[in-house]
C-alpha cells in the first residue's frame, strides 16, 4: 500500500523579531550584517503563554480548514517536537484533547529536530502501508526561542518558532496537493550529540539556575540551561555528509538529479544552504529556499517550505521532489516524493 | 435503591468481605482492611451498579455508608 501527502498547513506565532530590533539589542550586530550572513530578515516568536501544543493546535486547525478534512476521520497524530509541553505526559495526547479528535486516535510524540519531518513521514508511511491508520496527521511544533539565552546573539538571529501539520493517507486526493511518498535514506552520527544540545535538561535537569559563560571579550558563549550550538561542527557535518545523503537518497529511489524537479533542504541558514547546494551539484533554480521571514524553525522548516513551494511554484503532476533534513543528533534523513 | 444490596455491594470491594461488619452507620474508611485501592473499587462499583460517576472529593466527603448511599440516591434522582 502506498502513502500520500495530502495537504500541508502551517502556523507562525504573531510576534515578530526583526533585524532592526536585534541590532538595537546587539549594537555591533548590524542589520545588513545579519541579513548578509544568514539570509534572515525576521523570525516569529511564540508568546509567553503560548505552548507547543497551542501552536500545534493552530497548525492542525488550519490544515483541517484548508484541506476540508473531517476531524473525526483522523486516526493517528504524530507530533515531532524538541520543545514539548511536559516531559510527561505526551504532548500529542494534549493536542488530541484540545482539538477534540476521536478517542480512537493514536497519539505519540517523536523527538528529532531538523531531520524530524523526514523521519515523521517515514513513520507515517509505515502506519498507513500496514493499515494501522488511514488518516495520519504529522505535526511539527518548535519553539526554540524559549530555550535560547537572551544574550545569545547568533542563535536568536537564526532560530524562529513555527508549527506545521501534514495529512498522510493511503489514497491520493487530487483536489488538493497530493504526492506519493517514495523511498527513504536515514543516517545518525551520535558522536556529534554535543554540537546541538540543551545540557541541563531531561534527566539531567538541575533546578538551580546555571551560570553564563563569557569569553575574554565579554561575548556570551553559553549557559547550560539554554541551547548550545557549535556552528562550526554542524557546518562541517553538513558539508561532508549531505552530498552523500543526497546521492544515497537518489539511489534508493532509483533516480538522479536530472529527474528531480525541486530540492528542499532543512532551512538551516541561507549561507550554509547555498554552500551545500553547490557541493551537491544542485542547480540554483531547482533549490527552494524560503526562510528570510521565519528563520530556522527546526523540524518545521521543510513542511513550511514545501507548503510555500506548492503555492508559489507551478508544480506539475509526475514531478519528483527531494526533501533532506539534517542537524541535531546528529541526524539526517532524505526522501523523494512524487506529485500525483 | 435497596439498602441491603448497597451495603453488600460496598462490602464486596473489601479484601475480607466475610470478616467485616458493615452497617449504614459504619465509618467504612476506619476499618482495618480499608485502603485507597478499596476506595477505588467502591467508586467503580458505584458507576457499574448505579450509573453514577462520583468525583473523588465527593466520595471522600461521604464518611458513612449512609452518607454514600444518600449521595448516590440523590444523584440517581436527578
Amino acid at each position, binding site marked *: 500500500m502506498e502513502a500520500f501527502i495530502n495537504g500541508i498547513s502551517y502556523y507562525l506565532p504573531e510576534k515578530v523579531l526583526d533585524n532592526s530590533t536585534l541590532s538595537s539589542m546587539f549594537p555591533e550586530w548590524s542589520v545588513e550584517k545579519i541579513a548578509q550572513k544568514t539570509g534572515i530578515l525576521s523570525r516569529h516568536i511564540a508568546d509567553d503563554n503560548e505552548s507547543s501544543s497551542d501552536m500545534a493546535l493552530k497548525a492542525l486547525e488550519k490544515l483541517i480548514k484548508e484541506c476540508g478534512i473531517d476531524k473525526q476521520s483522523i486516526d493517528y497524530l504524530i507530533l515531532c517536537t524538541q520543545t514539548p509541553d511536559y516531559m510527561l505526559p505526551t504532548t500529542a495526547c494534549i493536542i488530541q484533547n484540545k482539538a477534540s479528535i476521536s478517542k480512537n486516535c493514536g497519539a505519540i510524540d517523536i523527538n528529532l529536530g531538523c531531520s524530524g519531518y523526514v*523521519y515523521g513521514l517515514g513513520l507515517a508511511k509505515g502506519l498507513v502501508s500496514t493499515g494501522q491508520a488511514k488518516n495520519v496527521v504529522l505535526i511539527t511544533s518548535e519553539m526554540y526561542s524559549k530555550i535560547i539565552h537572551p544574550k545569545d546573539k547568533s542563535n536568536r538571529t537564526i532560530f524562529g518558532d513555527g508549527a506545521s501539520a501534514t495529512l498522510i493517507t493511503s489514497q491520493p486526493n487530487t483536489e488538493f496537493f497530493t504526492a506519493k511518498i517514495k523511498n527513504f535514506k536515514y543516517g545518525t552520527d551520535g558522536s556529534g550529540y554535543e554540537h546541538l544540545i540543551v545540557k541541563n535538561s531531561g534527566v539531567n535537569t538541575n533546578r538551580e*539556575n546555571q551560570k553564563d559563560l563569557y569569553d575574554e571579550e565579554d561575548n556570551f558563549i553559553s549557559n547550560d540551561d539554554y541551547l548550545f550550538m557549535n556552528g562550526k561542527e554542524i557546518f562541517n557535518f553538513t558539508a561532508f555528509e549531505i552530498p552523500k545523503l543526497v546521492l544515497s537518497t537518489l539511489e534508493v529511489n532509483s533516480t538522479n538529479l536530472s529527474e528531480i524537479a525541486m530540492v528542499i533542504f532543512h532551512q538551516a541558514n541561507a549561507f550554509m544552504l547555498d554552500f551545500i547546494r553547490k557541493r551537491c551539484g544542485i542547480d540554483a533554480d531547482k533549490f527552494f529556499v524560503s526562510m528570510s521571514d521565519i528563520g530556522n524553525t527546526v523540524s518545521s522548516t521543510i513542511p513550511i517550505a514545501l507548503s510555500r513551494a506548492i503555492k508559489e511554484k507551478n508544480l506539475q503532476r509526475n514531478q519528483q521532489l527531494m526533501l533532506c533534513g539534517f542537524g541535531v543528533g546528529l541526524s539526517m534523513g532524505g526522501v523523494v516524493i512524487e506529485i500525483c | 435503591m435497596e439498602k441491603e444490596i448497597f451495603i453488600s455491594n460496598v462490602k464486596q470491594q473489601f479484601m475480607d468481605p466475610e470478616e467485616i461488619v458493615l452497617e449504614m452507620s459504619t465509618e467504612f474508611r476506619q476499618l482495618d482492611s480499608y485502603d485507597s485501592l478499596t476506595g477505588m473499587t467502591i467508586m467503580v462499583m458505584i458507576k457499574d451498579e448505579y450509573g453514577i460517576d462520583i468525583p473523588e472529593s465527593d466520595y471522600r466527603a461521604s464518611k458513612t455508608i449512609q452518607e454514600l448511599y444518600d449521595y448516590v440516591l440523590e444523584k440517581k434522582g436527578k
Partner: protein
Amino acid sequence: MDAYINGVSYYLPEKVLTNHDLQNIYPNWEVDKVTSRIGVQKRYVASESEFTSDLAIGAVNKLLNDYNIEKSSIDYLIICSQTPDYLLPATACIVQDKVGLPKSCGAVDLNLGCSGYIYGLGFAKGLLFSGQAKNIIFVTSETLTKFIHPEDKSNRALFGDAATATFITINPNKEFFSAKIKSFKYGTDGSGYDKLIIKNSAGHLIKKQSESFLDEEGNFILNDDYLYMNGTEIFNFTAFEIPKLIKDILEVNSVVIDDITMTVLHQANSFMLDFIRKRSGIHSDKMFIDLIDTGNTLSSTIPIALCKLIENNNIKENNKILLSGFGVGLSMAGVIIEN
C-alpha cells in the same frame, strides 16, 4: 511480508530498593501491607550518575549478545522514553554512537509511557513493511525514580527503573523466540493529561524549587517538580476502558478470548491487573501478573514480562499472546503476537 519480534532482553540498574529498605525509610508506614496489595517487593533504581542512555546501552548490548546479532546489520533504532537524557538531542542518537551502531542507521526517540511498547512495535512493523528498514532494535528505557519525590511513599514503592531491547525483523528466527506481530488498536484520551504528569518540566519548566503539598496528617501529596499520579483517576480509566480495549484488540485480529493463550498487560500493579482481569472475563491462568521484583517500569513492563515468559518456557508453539499497554497521556494500545 510479516514483522517478527525475534528477541527481547532487559537490563536493570544495580541499586535495589527493597521493602525492607522502605520500612527503614518510613518507619511509621505499613510497607508490607501496601506492597502486598500492589505486588512489589523490590525495585531497581538508577544511580545518580546513571542515565536513561546508560540503561538503554545495557539493554542493547544484552540483546546483541543474547541473540547473536551483528551490530552492523542494524539499520534503525527506536527509543521510547519519557525521561530522556536531554530535551535535545534525541537519546537514540547518543545510544547509536555509544553502542557502535552503523552511521547508516536511523535513530529516533518516542515519547509515550505505559502504552509506549505497543506504539513502538507498530512503528517498527510499519518501517519493515514499507522497506525502510530490515533490522530494527526497539528500546524502552526509563529512569523515572529520579523524578519521584523522596517523601512520595506510594510512588517510591511502586515504580522502578529498567530498560529493554527488542529485535524486530521481517524474517522469523527458528533458533530463538520468534513471534509475528499482528494487528493493532490505539486510543487516546488527553482530557486525562494531568492525571500522570511532571508539571514543572520541559515547556512548563520554571527554575525554582517547588513547594511540597502535604495532607492534614503530614503525608506527602504532591510537588510540581516531581511525578504526580492521580491513582483513583487512572484506576477508573483502566477499569472502564481496558475491558473495552481488549474486546477491540480481539476484534481487529478476528479472534476471541478463548483463542488467546496469554494476556500480558502493562504491569501497573497487581491489584489493578487482577481487577481488570475479572472485569474482562479472563481466567487467571491466562493473565500474566508479575512485577514483584521490578515494580512498575513504565514502557518496559511488557517486554520484561515477555522475557520472563520466554525464560520460564511458558511460551511453546502456536500461541496467541495479547499485549496491551495503557496509562499516562492518557493513552492505550494493544496488539496480538503469534508464534
